[in-house]
């Protein structure tokens, strides 16, 4: 442990003093700008236009980033920024899931704006320290830390005193240095990444919070798209905020009573129903494993199949025994859904911390599905171990898992061999090899260093260096727009193929999760139905990221009488709650339609940002065939009855007496054609051209006909 003496005056590179203020109806109306290259620190106003059109969170992040970069900017250019913002509702302590931060940057994986939604206490404490967002720009020549003292009104860039490079240690040490005693640690939150983010493009950011009961520093992850890689490239070791004095009223809402009453209503609902519904308080999101497996949706062996006979070995019942029960596991105050589970005193069996007993945040569904099922490794101890190392090394578990699954399939197909992998026997099911690959990523060595570049670049390397068949790799490489797929098998749900494919940042399920509505409940029979869902749900879900909210308390718990509502899938009771609390904080009365319009403004800004960066067109929305249908003979034959039936009923093709290859070709043509029709319908519903460009008419309707945006889309109409 480093001592306080390490921080001496001579280590301060730059210092800025500001007047602490009072939040007004959810906004500080200012942003903190820090340039680690030049040492410049200053305040920037949050304009009325930003509040009116962009709300906050991801909206602010995208706007600052837009103004910071050019179409030529690459992820590692100094002008690239990392913007972290809450939103007007961020930091309220009454309603579950109100402590989220939105991280926006140009991604090393996609080359486009990335947004990642993360819990932990940084966003709310930053807000209480006086800022709606923080913009980090420039590149330092030496490792630095940034410290914001939210009570004294001081921001400093200092030379980093840290000798450690992994997040669980950085978080602990920074909390120690910047707090006076154990009790004071609750007032500190640290953003950091780990050693792997030095090399891998899938680096994540860890946001800490102090768990008062365990007396431990815990971490939540801004996982997707390489935000941690950008952070390390700027040579920031830690971003620390301290604010003492959190209480219920710091947002200065226009109506505290509504917040109190709506919050208590939700707490009561969760108390009464969670154990009967999704058991978030018991097992967190890991409860999904057996459900996905039962519906043939759990990706196994690089998304080849949707279920596995050994899935019960990583089911929620197993994890329930491993995570400590009856703990208040909210990642911000007032979150009674409490999904942030943790395994205590887990003894590590591999890697640099072998033999140490650590706290592991998780496992979440994505960890268990990705590290477990998708790699064919049904070992819960290994899942926890992989979960810990991914987090502390600063590696996105989703990208790691999907990339490793791709590598394993390539290995088993002889595209690469032990010579290429440096001796690693990367077959499905080999947990030692998977963990060693992860440790190599941490050390920046061997094949692990190459794997850290992600599926898109690996495809290129395997094609160019090892003569792989580009068609096959593009079919099985589960990335789109450069981002690896998250862990749901969308093959049998056209709507979810679009739910992944027609996203702004790449195939992440936070925009739309329509599998049950589409495939299981058959609620979206027509293209128009699917298009409506692929308009409404991505827009509605975007709204959480504008406001500093978590999506889970919207539909991972529903009111007991939800089924009686006209459209239960939208959970209207909770939408009414959001309308209420948005008014309670900001004083602005919205309705469900206005929520959607607020999101559409930012959604279209992000789409146009993609266009500006050279993506964001129809061609970028196409998906790998593995996400649409069976790529290989064994995939087809494993579900031959299903596919044969579809050929006959849907494609008008009699499979009788045909070879598997013939049937696969017809099925593929049918499914790809369906996806194109889906794109047509969705673009039309979203107000985009047939090439996926937002129309000027749509932008005018939304009040987003800003000159900067029009300049990008006008020539493409």
């Amino acid at each position, binding site marked *: 442990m480093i001592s306080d003496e390490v921080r001496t005056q001579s280590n301060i590179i730059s210092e800025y003093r500001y007047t602490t203020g009072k939040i007004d109806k959810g906004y500080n109306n200012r942003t903190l700008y820090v340039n680690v290259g030049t040492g410049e620190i200053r305040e920037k106003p949050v304009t009325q236009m930003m509040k009116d059109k962009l709300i906050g969170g991801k909206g602010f992040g995208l706007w600052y980033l837009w103004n910071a970069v050019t179409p030529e900017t690459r992820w590692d250019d100094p002008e690239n920024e990392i913007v972290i913002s809450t939103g007007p509702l961020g930091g309220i302590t009454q309603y579950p899931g109100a402590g989220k931060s939105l991280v926006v940057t140009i991604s090393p994986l996609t080359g486009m704006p990335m947004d990642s939604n993360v819990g932990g206490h940084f966003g709310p404490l930053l807000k209480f320290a006086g800022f709606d967002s923080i913009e980090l720009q420039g590149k330092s020549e030496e490792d630095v830390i940034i410290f914001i003292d939210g009570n004294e009104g001081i921001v400093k860039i200092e030379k980093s005193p840290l000798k450690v490079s992994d997040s669980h240690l950085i978080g602990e040490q920074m909390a120690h240095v910047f707090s006076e005693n154990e009790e004071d640690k609750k007032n500190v939150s640290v953003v950091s990444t780990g050693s792997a983010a030095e090399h891998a493009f899938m680096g994540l950011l860890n946001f800490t919070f102090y768990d008062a*009961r365990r007396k431990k520093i815990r971490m939540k992850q801004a996982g997707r798209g390489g935000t941690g890689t950008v952070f390390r490239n700027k040579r920031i070791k830690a971003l620390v905020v301290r604010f003492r004095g959190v*209480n219920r009223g710091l947002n200065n809402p226009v109506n*505290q009573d509504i917040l109190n009453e709506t*919050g208590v*209503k939700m707490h009561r609902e969760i108390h009464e129903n969670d154990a009967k519904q999704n058991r978030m308080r018991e097992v967190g999101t890991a409860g999904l494993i057996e459900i996905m497996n039962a519906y043939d949706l759990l990706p196994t062996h690089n998304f080849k199949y949707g279920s596995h006979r050994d899935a019960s070995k990583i089911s929620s019942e197993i994890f329930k025994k491993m995570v400590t029960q009856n703990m208040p596991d909210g990642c911000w105050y*007032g979150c*009674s859904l409490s999904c942030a589970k943790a395994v205590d005193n887990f003894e590590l069996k591999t890697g640099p911390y072998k033999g140490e007993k650590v706290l592991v945040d998780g496992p979440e569904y994505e960890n268990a599905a990705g590290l477990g099922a998708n790699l064919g490794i049904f070992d819960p101890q290994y899942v926890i171990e992989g979960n810990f190392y991914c987090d502390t090394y600063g590696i996105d578990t989703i990208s790691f898992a999907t990339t490793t699954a791709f590598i394993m399939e390539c290995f088993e197909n002889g595209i690469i061999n032990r010579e290429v992998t440096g001796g690693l026997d990367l077959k499905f099911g080999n947990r030692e090899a998977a963990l060693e690959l992860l440790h190599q990523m941490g050390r920046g060595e061997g094949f692990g260093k190459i794997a850290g570049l992600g599926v898109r670049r690996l495809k290129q390397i395997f094609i160019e260096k090892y003569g792989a068949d580009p068609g096959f790799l593009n079919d099985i490489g589960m990335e789109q727009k450069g981002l690896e797929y998250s862990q749901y098998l969308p093959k049998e749900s056209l709507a979810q193929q679009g739910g992944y494919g027609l996203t702004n940042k790449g195939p992440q399920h936070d925009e739309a999760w329509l599998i049950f509505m589409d495939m299981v409940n058959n609620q979206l029979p027509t293209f128009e139905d699917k298009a409506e869902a692929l308009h409404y749900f991505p827009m509605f879900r975007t709204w959480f990221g504008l406001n500093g909210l978590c999506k889970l308390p919207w539909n991972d718990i529903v009111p007991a009488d939800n089924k009686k509502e006209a459209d239960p899938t939208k959970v209207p009771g909770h939408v009414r709650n959001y309308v209420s609390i948005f008014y309670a904080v900001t004083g602005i009365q919205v309705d469900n339609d206005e929520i959607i319009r607020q999101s559409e403004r930012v959604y279209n800004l992000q789409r146009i940002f993609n266009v500006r960066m050279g993506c964001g067109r129809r061609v970028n929305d196409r998906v790998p065939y593995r996400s649409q249908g069976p790529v290989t003979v064994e995939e087809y034959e494993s579900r031959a009855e299903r596919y044969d039936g579809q050929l006959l009923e849907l494609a008008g093709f009699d499979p009788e007496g045909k070879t598997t290859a013939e049937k696969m070709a017809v099925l593929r043509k049918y499914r790809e054609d369906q996806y194109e029709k889906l794109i047509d319908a969705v673009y039309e519903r979203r107000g985009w051209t047939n090439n996926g460009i937002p129309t000027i008419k749509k932008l005018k309707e939304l009040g987003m006909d800003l000159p900067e945006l029009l300049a990008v889309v006008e020539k493409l109409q």
Partner: protein
Amino acid sequence: MKILQKKLELCTQCRVCEMECSRTWFKEEKSEKSRIRIHQDNLLTCTQCGECIKICQVQAIYRDKFGVIKVDRKKCIGCFMCVGFCPERAMFMHNDYAEPFKCVACGKCVQKCPTNAIYILEEAAG
């Protein structure tokens, strides 16, 4: 351990207990500011079970040396999770106050109850 106990069959719902409690703790007579509450056919009182201690993220709720559960107002951040999670619905909130409140078995209401429908039980700890 001190616990307020009830004999529902004796309660006439006269609300004297609510008024006494509210006057004692908040200097005004309002049912919605009472820490004992008549609700439908029930009398909501704290059983000092301690469920709320487990719920609280900031450890503002604790059991004192008499076994009575109390809220430390200095630590409380006003999330009201304890209000939603109390199995007896006996943790209360009022919009005039930043923190929740509950029965601390002070016994003031017992003294006023005209039908002896409530009483204080003292149990050995453990």
